[in-house]
């Protein structure tokens, strides 16, 4: 069972967390239909370091994790809006 390092609570069993999808910017309100369909339905599925939303259920805390999908290593976690504050994995 993996350990995920929560920026608020420290290292915890991954079962304490819920995955919330990839971090992505919403298209502009008037962007074309295709851009919206892409945003809602499609994921890049990259073999790379991706940014994801995770929530610590017991504290209701949402944060961002950077994970290498090739090794499943979580490289760092941080509060949204604060990428310069590092929480090491």
């Amino acid at each position, binding site marked *: 069972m*993996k*350990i995920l390092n929560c920026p608020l609570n420290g290292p915890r069993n991954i079962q304490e967390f819920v995955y*919330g999808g990839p971090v992505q910017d919403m298209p502009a*309100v008037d962007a074309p239909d295709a851009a919206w369909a892409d*945003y809602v339905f499609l994921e890049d599925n990259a073999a790379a370091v991706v940014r994801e939303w995770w*929530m610590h259920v017991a504290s*209701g805390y949402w944060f961002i994790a950077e994970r290498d999908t090739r090794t499943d290593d979580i490289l760092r976690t941080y509060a949204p809006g604060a990428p310069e504050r590092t929480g090491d994995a």
Partner: protein
Amino acid sequence: MTARLAPPYGLLLDRDRSIRFSFEGQPIEGYAGDTIASALAANDIWLLSRSFKYHRPRGILSMAGDDANTLVQLPDEPNVLADLHRISDGLAVTGQHYTGSLRSDGGQWIERIAKFLPVGFYYRAFHKPRGIWDFWEKRIRARAGLGTVNEAVRGRYYDKEYAFAEVAVVGAGAAGVAAAIEAARAGRQVVLIERQPILGGALNHARVDARATRGVDLAGALAEDLAAVEDRITILTDATCTGLFDDNLLAVVTGNRLIKLRAEQVVLATGAIEQPMVFANNDLPGIMMGSAAQRLLWLYAVRPGRHAVVVTVNGDGYGVALDLAEAGVTVQAIVDLRTAAAPDSRVEEAVSRRYPILQGFTVDRAIANAGGHHLAGVDLVPAEKDDMATPARRHIACDLLCMAVGWAPAASLAAHAGAAVTYDETANSFTVADLPPTIHATGALAGIWNTDDAIAHGRHTGRRAAGSHGEPTAKTDAAQLSVSAPFPCSETGDGKAFVDFDEDLTPEDIRNSIAEGFDHIELLKRFSTVGMGPSQGRQSVTNALRLLCRETGQAIQESQGWTNRPPAFPEKIGQLAGRGFDPVRKTPMHDRHLEAGAGMMVAGNWLRPVGYGSNLSEAAIAEARAVRNGVGLIDVSTLGGIDLRGPDVVEFLNRLYTMDYTKQPVGRGRYALMCDMTGTVMDDGVACRMAQDHFYVTATTGNSDGVYRSMLQWNAQWRLEVDIANMTGAFAAVNIAGPQSRKVLGPLCEGIDLSAAGFPYMAVGEASVAGMPARIMRVGFVGELGYEIHVPAGYGEALWDALTDAGRPYHCRPFGVEAQRILRLEKGHIIIGQDTDGLTHPHEAGMGWAIGKRKPFFVGKRAIDIQMARGLERVLVGFTLPPQTAVLPEECHLVFKGEDIVGRVTSIVRSPTLGQPIGMAYTAPDRAEPGMPILIKGPMGRYIQGTVAALPFYDPENRRQAG
């Protein structure tokens, strides 16, 4: 018990305590500490089981719980390993998988038709001619499987525990104990895990050199060192590590408990598993591993036979012979597969004692006694047969054959951790490499066979795990010790030779599988089932790989076995389930519902009353009538409630819900509809403006946690100035509904004007109800005058009591979820998740009115617009059926337009108020006008015609609810 030996044999026995149990109905006596197998062996009973396919007699093989030849049945548990399970008073043990008795199993005949049952025969049989499976299925089910489950057994107490260690050491043999001691000396907190009841591993039973006591000396010395650091070591015996997971989480099962142990560093000292030889009838009781015979002697004080032959390629076999002889067993011969033995003090001692030693011979076949249940002798042939057409056979009578032809590292946990377990031709065995940095291997697992080297390596590994650096000492050259035979397989003998005992597979079966094209180890495993039995290939993968490489010409160097996955040893489902925590939420009025005779149902993770009374369908009708005609109470504490506060609260609501809340006055509630990004309706409720910057929003019971989570996630992105607080459990809430509701509630209220003018439909306010602080809303889900009262949860029961008392003169009665569903359907209100599905967008459900037209954005807006541009494909309508309709369609019955399916029924009930069946259904947009027919395919495929009706069915002018 004539086979028992006096001390110092019998390390695990408590001879002061006799235990009486039975086997196959026969009373047996043993000692406390005996396993079933050892107690039976002491009583000269060696037949323990019948094999899976051919029902061949089987008995002790490893005496360590590594094989499955000892599976027996207990009254409340099948498939118990007799060589591990300790006897207890009154235990009734029987064999499994036989017809008649264990001794004369009617199933034995199947071996006679073995040639019609080649490997994988079942892939091609039992399906032609059509219908033949019906004949065979019952018979196969009756014969298949091993033990029997006793369905009358009540659940046992299982549980789980989390534990933590700086260094976890798996295996308490010489290397493991040494590692644990050194890690503790370096100041680390250590957990030492051992499958057997005592520490020491092979030191307790192996003969490591000519002097018999050497192993025991070493064990004693380690025990002293261990005692010196015992405050830093937690020792778990009778504990099996079944899996090694991400970030060093170890699963350890012990008794009825599963321990989830998180370790910073892991030392694997799990040792090695002795491997069998393959020759005709190598599965007879009386044929066992050399280490099994030594375990019987040293741990259980049982003489394993009277006349023994030892077949070997290493010094261990000679050590076995020495042990046997000293225990009074006649060593008839030591059969050494090698032409010349490597130098070893045990070999020299055997030679000096003049044991009969046959160099360069091998076992050709084993011969059973007259009853067919036990070994009576072996035939030997020269090991190098070359071009001998008929090799000269030598026969030796014996009742015990010990195999000491090699070892395989017990590498399951290393494999779980991602190590490379590959075959090494210089060692004739698998080796473990590429372990992750925090996991270390030592002892026999790491290929270190010499005991002194294993202890030294264990010490170094313990220090490394504790954080010091430096390479461990180089191990003794394995090739020089000639520990394992390269190919201990002889096929010249007459009779079945077994590669896999669990699955009754012979070398011919392996070759036939390869000939069919399954020539990769993973394919070979799946087609032939080699390694898929209870022992999971522990004693078969090595020989199977050797056979595969010989047959296909593939190089065996660096070949791997099949992928090894947890669990490494059997786990019970009870251990995995533990206490089975299943949180349930109850409202503060829960006991009042039970006292009033409610039948409860699960809604989300809450319990809610379905209705009150023994006949819930009748109760629902009566309760609905009471609300329409008078007044009723329903506990709605389970509905979600979220407090949104802050300067950006309106902006937040506008982005998340479909309506526009900008102009909503303080003191008013407004319908709240939430969609997801695909435009699908997700949840609904009421948004009450308590103050300029404060909204209290309700949500459905099942979705409130999801709505809260979603709000938090959106605001983590938007970062608006709004605080989101989940108040669901903090408030108890009651909905009082019916024409008399104002008369009941009014007198209880202080600080509020409940008149029609003072508190109109959708008004919201705060007041004191029966002396308790409350939020009151005038809402209408059921279509009558009604109020929802929210109080802090601690007051819930008192509020319910106050309303019940105040309502008594008006015949107020509690109503449950079922009555509420009838009432809301009469009023045409949808239930999200019942009348909507995973694709329903607001316009399909007739809720276009709930969409704020001037908002530039809300979650799902674009998706709704895109779908609407394509046009509606279906719409939700109300419908009625004639009152005399005898059989009603049910939810999810389909709606047809001609031959085409255009929708389905979502809700239906016989309305007590309207006197006829009413419902909601999806249908084609051009069939949605009130008055049009609607065709439903009901039960038994019969078509039922209804009429589309305008919603609501009841009180279309809203006089009752909003007046």
